[in-house]
């Protein structure tokens, strides 16, 4: 054992630390799930439904089986265990049984020596469909034939609603919902379907272990919940299914639900060969859940001097063909619909429905994005109606500790809404650049479409907030295990998914801080060596992993003090303060809280619009975000910049187009995401107001910028054009004057 005093070479919590995974990533050496190769590996391919709604009359695999290089063709008949799965409700078939409910639903699987052989064999699987009328409209779904007459989400403590196709209906009644204000404004708003569009397509490698079990190396957000869904479908005990984190090329919620996990494992166990499945971009667009499209009806009442007195908010979300996480999104959309403002009265009615549209589930912001867009438009309308400065109006109503949310939950933790608003408002955008100027800095950019004549400038402002971690009574925990050697090194095991957000850095910073050691290694994430970390979702992973790693490190030090000179190995489970469900009838809390904590982001946006051509250019964005404690400031800024870009995309260009349930733009040619020419500079201010219940005072930082930026960008377009702009993404026709 060395006695030398060791100086820390790599940072503790709060320091700017380069990412350990950055050097292998810049060299092209980092192994993403799609890069994995093992000898004898086959390629899997998924046959998907070309119809949004159809009955399956027959599946003929005979020709496909005899194609060159083909080792297996599987249908639902070949599933040894449970034939359905789901993140929260097992309502989704692993492979379609007698019907398909969405365009792209998996129907059959092929494994072959070469991916092209697998694709060609897939074309020779003859599926006979009887097409059915798709339920393609979320409002009409409530009067259409029930797609899930067995009501999979019934009996889970939600409000009973007998209308067809209801996934979840919830009502929050707060105070007296009939109160009228001196002034009121109303509006109707729509949000289109957004895609996570992570760059690394769904991919994974399933390797049979020769003893009936399987190892799955996959790009996912939550290893243990994958295992608990995969094992019953394979009819295997949990221990025989080992999930390992393959390198993840972005996630943003789109990897919460299963993609290739069961499919790859079925093919691997059937052929007794390793099987790799990599989606192409088109398949990725159909192969994962999306952000819920929404329709929202709002009515805001205020006193003459600008205090909110009542908000009525009706929300309809299209959940698509299966439940995924729609029930939680329904609740989140409702919970944050008022924005970070206090109103003594509110009536919030939020419903998600099944349709034959693409399934929707988790995406960064999780329901709060949609209602922030509508709610912030309402606040601007209210300010205009009252003749009050929109920022003043927001300050006047800003939530603060001690205030009560519409669910009856009192805010006990950090809630620096006013600080965020003031800090963002104080950011000074650059002065308008005179004309003429290089076209690259005009709306339309390199398209060289304008000389600047019709260009108008607008400044918008918005504030958004959302919850950190899981809510409504979910048993939300994270495990970490620490091996501490007397020789002065430690090994941390934590199954937290590194999806690009930098949680591995957080884990190492926490361990180094707690242990006072620089020689700390992080073991590969897998299910076999450590308990669940929960999901890299809901802006929870930094908080939860920091809590678990801190506790495990402290326990390891305690144990080492008891047994000096010995290696210790301890595992600890961290839980955040307990939440409880909402009352299904009133939407009121049944305990102290339904949400654990909140984070706010305020944003100012400058945009230019060419009102002759309907083209936009976002010039500058300033953001002030409530981050609790910045574990690594550089990474926090990166989250704000990247999260802002995704919201900007929803405001200006991103929408999955469907026609009667068929996706018509499943490619990066037709589904546009912001490029280097679309993103303005983002100036960010980090507001550090420690969260009392969280380790080191941290909060999650990933979602708040995405929640608010759509609303803030559209506010700037409204200011530039004077148009209402009630729908995102905003189309050129909407802003041509």
């Amino acid at each position, binding site marked *: 054992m060395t006695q030398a005093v060791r100086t820390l070479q790599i940072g503790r919590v709060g320091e700017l630390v380069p990412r350990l995974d950055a050097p292998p990533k810049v060299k092209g050496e980092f192994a993403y799930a799609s*890069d994995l190769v093992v000898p004898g590996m086959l390629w899997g391919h998924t046959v998907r439904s070309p119809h949004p709604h159809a009955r399956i009359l027959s599946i003929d695999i005979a020709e496909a089986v005899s194609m060159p290089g083909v080792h297996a063709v599987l249908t639902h008949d070949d599933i040894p265990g449970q034939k359905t799965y789901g993140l929260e409700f097992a309502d989704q078939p692993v492979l379609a049984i007698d019907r398909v409910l969405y365009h792209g639903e998996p129907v059959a699987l092929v494994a072959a020596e070469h991916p092209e052989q697998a694709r060609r064999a897939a074309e020779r699987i003859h599926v006979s469909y009887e097409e059915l009328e798709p339920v393609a409209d979320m409002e009409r779904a409530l009067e259409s034939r029930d797609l899930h007459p067995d009501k999979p989400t019934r009996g889970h403590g939600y409000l009973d609603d007998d209308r067809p196709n209801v996934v979840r209906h919830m009502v929050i009644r707060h105070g007296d919902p009939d109160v009228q204000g001196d002034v009121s404004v109303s509006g109707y708003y729509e949000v289109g379907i957004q895609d996570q569009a992570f*760059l690394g397509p769904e991919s994974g490698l399933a390797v049979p272990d020769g003893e009936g079990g399987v190892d799955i190396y996959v790009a996912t957000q939550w290893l243990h919940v994958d295992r608990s869904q995969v094992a019953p479908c394979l009819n295997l005990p949990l221990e025989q299914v080992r999930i390992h984190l393959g390198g993840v090329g972005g996630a943003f919620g789109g990897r919460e639900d299963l993609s290739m996990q069961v499919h790859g494992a079925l093919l691997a166990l059937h052929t007794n060969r390793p099987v790799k499945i990599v989606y192409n971009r088109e398949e990725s667009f159909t192969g994962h859940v999306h952000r819920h499209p929404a329709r929202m009806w709002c009515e805001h009442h205020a006193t003459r001097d600008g205090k909110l007195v009542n908000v009525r908010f009706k929300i309809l979300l299209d959940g698509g063909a299966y439940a995924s996480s729609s029930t939680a999104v329904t609740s989140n959309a409702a919970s944050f619909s008022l924005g970070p403002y206090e109103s003594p009265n509110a009536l919030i009615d939020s419903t998600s429905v099944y349709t034959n549209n693409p399934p929707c589930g988790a995406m960064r912001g999780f329901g709060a994005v949609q209602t922030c867009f509508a709610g912030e438009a309402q606040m601007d309308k209210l300010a205009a109606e009252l003749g009050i400065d929109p920022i003043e109006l927001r300050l006047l109503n800003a939530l603060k500790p001690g205030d009560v949310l519409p669910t009856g939950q009192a805010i006990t933790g950090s809630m620096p809404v006013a600080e965020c608003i003031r800090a963002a408002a104080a950011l000074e955008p650059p002065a308008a650049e005179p004309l003429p100027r290089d076209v690259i800095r005009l709306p339309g950019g390199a398209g060289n479409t304008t000389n600047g004549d019709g260009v108008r400038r607008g400044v918008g402002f918005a504030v958004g907030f959302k919850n950190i971690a899981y809510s409504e009574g979910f048993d939300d925990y994270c495990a970490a295990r620490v091996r501490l050697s007397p020789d002065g090194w430690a090994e941390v095991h934590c199954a937290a998914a590194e999806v690009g957000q930098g949680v591995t850095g957080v884990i190492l910073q926490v361990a180094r801080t707690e242990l006072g050691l620089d020689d700390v290694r992080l073991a590969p994430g897998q299910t076999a060596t450590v308990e669940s970390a929960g999901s890299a979702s809901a802006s929870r992973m930094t908080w939860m992993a920091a809590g678990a790693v801190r506790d495990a490190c402290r326990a390891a030090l305690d144990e080492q003090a008891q047994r000096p000179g010995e290696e210790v190995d301890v595992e600890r489970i961290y839980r955040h303060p307990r939440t409880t469900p909402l009352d299904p009838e009133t939407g009121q809390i049944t305990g102290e809280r339904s949400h654990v904590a909140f984070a706010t982001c305020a944003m100012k946006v400058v945009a230019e619009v060419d009102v002759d051509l309907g083209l936009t250019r976002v010039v500058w964005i300033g953001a002030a975000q409530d981050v609790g404690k910045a574990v690594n400031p*550089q990474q926090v800024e*990166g989250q704000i910049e990247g999260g802002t870009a995704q919201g900007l995309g929803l405001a200006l260009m991103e929408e999955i187009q469907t026609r009667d349930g068929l996706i018509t733009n499943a490619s990066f040619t037709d589904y546009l995401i912001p490029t280097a020419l679309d993103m303005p500079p983002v100036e960010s201010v980090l507001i550090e107001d420690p969260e009392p219940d969280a380790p080191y005072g941290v909060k999650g930082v990933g979602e708040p910028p995405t929640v608010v930026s759509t609303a803030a960008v559209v506010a700037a377009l409204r200011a530039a054009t004077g148009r209402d702009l009630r729908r995102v993404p905003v189309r050129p026709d909407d802003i041509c004057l």
Partner: protein
Amino acid sequence: MRITVRINGEEHQADCWEGESLLFALREKLGFPGSKNACEQGECGSCSVLLDGSLVCACLVLAAQADGHDVTTVEGLVENGELHPVQQAFVDAGAVQCGFCTPGLVVATADLLRRSPHPSDDEIREALSGNLCRCTGYAKIFDAVRAAARA
């Protein structure tokens, strides 16, 4: 068919099916998985490589077309075990999150700085507009390019 390609200065051979892209051959046949497969239709730039010194999307080039030619991939930018200045700048600036776009952006940036050692901000944005990044919002990537230009 058998192809011979000079990759990062060394000759490599592979048996390819005529329909295979250079990207597929690099990743699956030749042992260079650094170039990434994010769209495979030339929209995202994740597979950017230099073909005889010109920046191309490897997904849009047939493996057969590269027969007898020089290819530089992201793996080839490392010299004597040292990161290329562009790679180092990406690490230092925090320009890497999930990193799936990074190899393509590193190759595209190296190409830009070779053509234009001190690019303006507009030049940087235009040069990298064919490389999609979903994580970073590009701000730290621009920082990295400016830092690499100074290095």
